[in-house]
């Protein structure tokens, strides 16, 4: 019967989580929930920020073991800033993603961390990359990750359209995170969203997800 329990099997504090990144016309939105739990029984943080800035216009979302993810990102940040100094130009988004990938792949036996990397660079514009648990690196238009993501695959497949406007994409990301948090017990709290465009970076904190939940579940109003 155990195969029916979603066993995260992650050591220590885990970001049982929902993370998401999506490209819109002119930029990219990356976001996550804010819950960190120990084995799904105790919420060790209600307000953790899983969206980390690794360079001016490049952000990462972490999933899996929080300790591993933080260590990898710390190392990646220093690699990336050194690389940026050497190249005398801002790093490409794929460079950031590749640095994470190298770390995840070379240490795949010890680590249990996955990442979404999103950003904007002058060469290719807005991009989203996924580095999976074993160190695979792929580029996608929209991607979701973490334990809560299983519940919103259908929603994302149905609702994501390429070349949305900024507002549409923000609403899409907020809705998707709200729906995932509504079904996954190890995702929750608030939604941290970051919008990255050529012009710059905007951080958004969405606390009113409970209102969205009420809209999606009209029976609660009865």
């Amino acid at each position: 019967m155990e195969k029916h329990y979603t066993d995260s099997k992650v050591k220590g504090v885990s970001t049982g989580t929902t993370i998401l990144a999506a490209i819109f016309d002119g930029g990219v939105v990356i976001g996550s929930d804010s819950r960190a739990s120990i084995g799904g029984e105790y919420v060790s943080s209600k307000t953790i920020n899983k969206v980390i800035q690794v360079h001016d216009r490049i952000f990462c979302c972490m999933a899996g073991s929080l300790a591993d993810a933080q260590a990898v990102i710390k190392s990646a940040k220093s690699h990336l800033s050194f690389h940026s100094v050497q190249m005398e130009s801002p790093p490409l988004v794929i460079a950031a993603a590749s640095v994470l990938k190298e770390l995840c792949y070379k240490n795949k036996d010890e680590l249990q961390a996955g990442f979404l990397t999103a950003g904007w660079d002058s060469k290719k514009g807005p991009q989203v990359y996924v580095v999976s648990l074993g160190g695979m690196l792929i580029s996608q238009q929209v991607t979701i990750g973490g334990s809560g993501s299983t519940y919103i695959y259908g929603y994302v497949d149905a609702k994501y359209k390429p070349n949305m406007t900024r507002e549409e994409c923000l609403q899409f990301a907020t809705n998707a995170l709200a729906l995932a948090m509504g079904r996954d017990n190890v995702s929750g709290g608030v939604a941290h969203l970051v919008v990255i465009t050529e012009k710059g970076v905007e951080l958004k904190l969405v606390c009113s997800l409970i209102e969205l939940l009420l809209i999606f579940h009209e029976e609660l109003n009865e």
Partner: protein
Amino acid sequence: MAAAASMMPIFGHQISSKNDLVLDWSREEVSTGTTIMAVEYDGGVVIGADSRTTTGAYIANRVTDKLTRIHDRIYCCRSGSAADTQAIAEVVSYQLGFHSVELDEPPLVETAANLFRASCYRYREELMAGILVAGWDRRKGGQVYCVPIGGMLVRQPVAVGGSGSTYVYGFMDSNYKPGLNKDQCLELTASALSLAMERDGSSGGVIRLASISEDGVERRVILGDQLPRFSTH
């Protein structure tokens, strides 16, 4: 030989039938790893399922009918072990038919659901069955009852089940509203099943739909090339 061997990349596992990279299909259980769905509307219910039955990685039946008739206006959607669910459905079918003859009137959907629950709960350790019971009766109209693994019984206006259901909870939460009519329910069910089939390896094939109301049961099949399609990315 030794020199050549050391130049080969070292693989963690050797491909053989003694480990879990390659399955020994003769020993794998036949499972309806699946996606099933049932929705109530005013006047009846709509039920739907994919059509894939797997034995490990092999698709034993790609045109399975997982919508099983229990009585004239009561159907069940089966997920889990194919053997277990077929056996339970047969038993309940018999019990319900007998009960209906005793009563001399069509049985209630709630009665059928309770019969499923009784079997699933009593033999919960041996069974692996997740069942949606749906139908129409004169007392309460269209009803959907969920009997998941373990043997709980709960009535819900809309229910999904099976391995593919996890992928469409978000879609269902956002798209279902109370008060849909029959055609909207059919469209919602077909869309949700199509999305799940695209993401779940154990679901696929065709979509089988049925709508049950006072007038009877209407069945239809949506073939692979006619599945609802969504924007590609």
